[in-house]
Every structure is written in structure tokens, then in C-alpha cells.
């Protein structure tokens, strides 16, 4: 049982909680000679592998560091442009680290608000009346399970595709939300959840599920 992450989307479609639980870290570091046989390009403020997949470096991975110095945007820590470094023969051999990009909080907010109309659309497209919207969405590498409460809050867990019993997990997260978030007098409705007790109890729950499954929830 692997749970990759938990999201809570408010009634109005805003992301009010997100937690990355167990996302596998994919990172490869390799030393290259001149000229570089991987085509890189700059998009969305990241240096991305466009072509030339090999040795665990896949198309879509981003450049994380050059000679151990972390890359932000298209510059290294000491302010040099990544592309200038790569094109200069004198800098080789170069040690480059590539990895899967991590979604930033902003990207997650965008994704959460994209799921909202998707959910509504699914219930409208339904051939039969009274459709609940998307409850589960399966891909080859993950399964997304969604539970919408009567009040309109959506609880979402992203798990491995073979995960069973996510409904029970979602129900437990709902209980935790009603206990630790809503009974906290300093939490205002519809706002992002920043309650330490909620965090800790959620982590305990997820660890329990990963260790012993969902049968005893």
C-alpha cells in the first residue's frame, strides 16, 4: 500500500490542504563529455530534457544541479547561465544531475482547481441522472480516489493503482478533518488548513495504512 499524497479541496474549489506522503524521488547524476548528447530546452522556468533519453535520464526530467551546484530557473548558484556552461568546451567534463520535477504549491493549486470542473463535468456527462462525479481515476502509475461530502468538500488521495479500500481511508480523513481542523477555533472555514494536530494525526493514519492496510480502519 503506497499513498503518494492527500489533497483537500474546499466547496468553492480551492486547495485547502495538500500533503506529499511518499513520492519516489527519481534523480540521476552523471558525468558528461563534450559535446553534450542530451538536448535541453528552457520551458516553464526549468531546464528540461527535450530529447535523448538514456541511463535513467528521461524526457521531461529537469536539470537539478551542475557540478553539484543547484540550478534555479536557468542559472546555477553562482549566477552563471546553464546554457553558456553547457556550450563551453572548457567546462567539461561536466557532472549534471537530472530528476523528475516536483510540483510546486502553485502548480498544485492550479491542478486542484482543474479537477473541480472535471468532477462537475463528469457528473453532467453521465448518461444516467444522479451521478456522483469522479470517484476514482486510474492511470498506469497511480490511482486517484475522491470522496465528496454532503457539504461539498472533496477529499482526494493519490495511491498506487493496486490500492484497495481507499474509501475507508477517505472516510477516516474526513473524521480527522471534522475533529482537528473544524473544532480548532482558530481555523476559519474555506481557508488553508494549518493545524499541527491535523497534520500529525493524518501522518499517523497514513503510516498505519501503509504498514497494515485498510482492513482495520
Amino acid at each position, binding site marked *: 500500500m503506497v499513498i503518494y499524497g492527500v489533497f483537500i479541496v474546499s*466547496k468553492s474549489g480551492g486547495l485547502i490542504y495538500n500533503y506529499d506522503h511518499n513520492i519516489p524521488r527519481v534523480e540521476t547524476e552523471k558525468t558528461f563529455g563534450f559535446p553534450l548528447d542530451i538536448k535541453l530546452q528552457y520551458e516553464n522556468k526549468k531546464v528540461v530534457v527535450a530529447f535523448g533519453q538514456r541511463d535513467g535520464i528521461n524526457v521531461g526530467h529537469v536539470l537539478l544541479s551542475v557540478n553539484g551546484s543547484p540550478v534555479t530557473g536557468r542559472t546555477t548558484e553562482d549566477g552563471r547561465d546553464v546554457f553558456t556552461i553547457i556550450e563551453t568546451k572548457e567546462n567539461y567534463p561536466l557532472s549534471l544531475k537530472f530528476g523528475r520535477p516536483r510540483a510546486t504549491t502553485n502548480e498544485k493549486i492550479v491542478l486542484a482547481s482543474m479537477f473541480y470542473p472535471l*468532477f*462537475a463535468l*463528469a*457528473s*453532467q456527462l453521465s448518461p444516467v441522472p444522479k*451521478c*456522483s*462525479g469522479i470517484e476514482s481515476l486510474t492511470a498506469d502509475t497511480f490511482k486517484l480516489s475522491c470522496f*465528496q*461530502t*454532503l*457539504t*461539498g*468538500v472533496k477529499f482526494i488521495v493519490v495511491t498506487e493503482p493496486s490500492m484497495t479500500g481507499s474509501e475507508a481511508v477517505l*472516510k477516516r480523513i*474526513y*473524521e480527522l*478533518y*471534522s*475533529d482537528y481542523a*473544524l*473544532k480548532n477555533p482558530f481555523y476559519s*472555514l474555506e481557508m488553508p488548513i494549518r493545524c499541527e494536530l491535523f497534520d500529525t494525526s493524518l501522518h499517523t493514519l497514513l503510516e498505519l495504512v501503509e504498514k497494515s492496510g485498510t482492513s482495520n480502519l
Partner: protein
Amino acid sequence: MSRQTSRLDAKKVNSELLTLTYGALVSQMLKEIDNTDDVNKQLERIGYNMGVRLIEDFLARTTSTRCLEMRETADKIQQAFRLYLNMQPTVTSWSSSGDEFSLVWDQCPLSEWVEMPNNGLKYCMLIPGAIRGALQMVQLEVQCWFVQDQLKGDPVTELRVKYIKRLEDAVPAGED
């Protein structure tokens, strides 16, 4: 579900604690606010804010589905009274159109040991507020008021609940 009930038991507290805390709140409000009508309004507002949050707790604990009919709603409210105040009000006096009913009780943990000052205070005003707030979160607008009050010499306390409308705009996708 068996585990959940045991969880609830663990959190049971003596009702006297609630009685005293609520009494302290009301008497403090009477001290700070001159106008009793304002106190009633504030109590209703506090109740509303509690109801808005409490409904999630109720839904998470019980396996309630959406009510599409007032009788079901009355049942659920009765269940909530049992869950949160450990009392069992009777549902009576249905209007002929089935959109209005009364909750009647003769003992409530909130109003135990209370002798009322004669100033128009509605001591238990928190309850109708909570009902209104909770039902609003499940897209049901109701009106709630006291018809009889034991604290004012009536034989029982009677709370009237009236259906106003369903908040169609707020119904979440996949429910309409």
C-alpha cells in the same frame, strides 16, 4: 461502525460541565451587553457558527445521506440531539404541508439549574442557531424559533423548525 461508537464513548463528558460553561457564557454576555435582544442575537450567531462546523462532525460520524424530505431531516436532527446533548426530543405538530414541525423536550442539559431573570432572554438560543447553521451547510434553509420555553413557565420547551427553501446554487456538483 463499531469502532466509531467506542471512539465516541471515550470523549463523553459529564453534562454538568457543559451546563456550567454555557451558563458562564450567557451570564457574561448579559453583563457585557445591555440589550437582551442583542444577547439573543449573539447567542444565535454563536450557535450558527457552531452548527456550520458541527455538521461535518455529524456527517463523518454517522452514515447520513442527503435528506430530500423534511421528515428525514427531522429524524436526523433528533439523532444529532441524541449524539451531542444526550437527549431525545419528540418530533410533533407537523404542518399539513409537511414543511414545518416542532421539537419538544422537557429536559435539556443546557438549561439545568437555571432560574431566569425576567428580561426577555432566550436562554437556549444557541440550539436554533446551530440547527440553522448545520442545515445551511447541507443546502437547506430553515427558520427556527421557540414557541414554548420551560424556563418561562411553559410545561415543555417547544422549538419550531420551518423549511424555507433549498439553496440550489450551493448544491455540490453531482448532487443536483
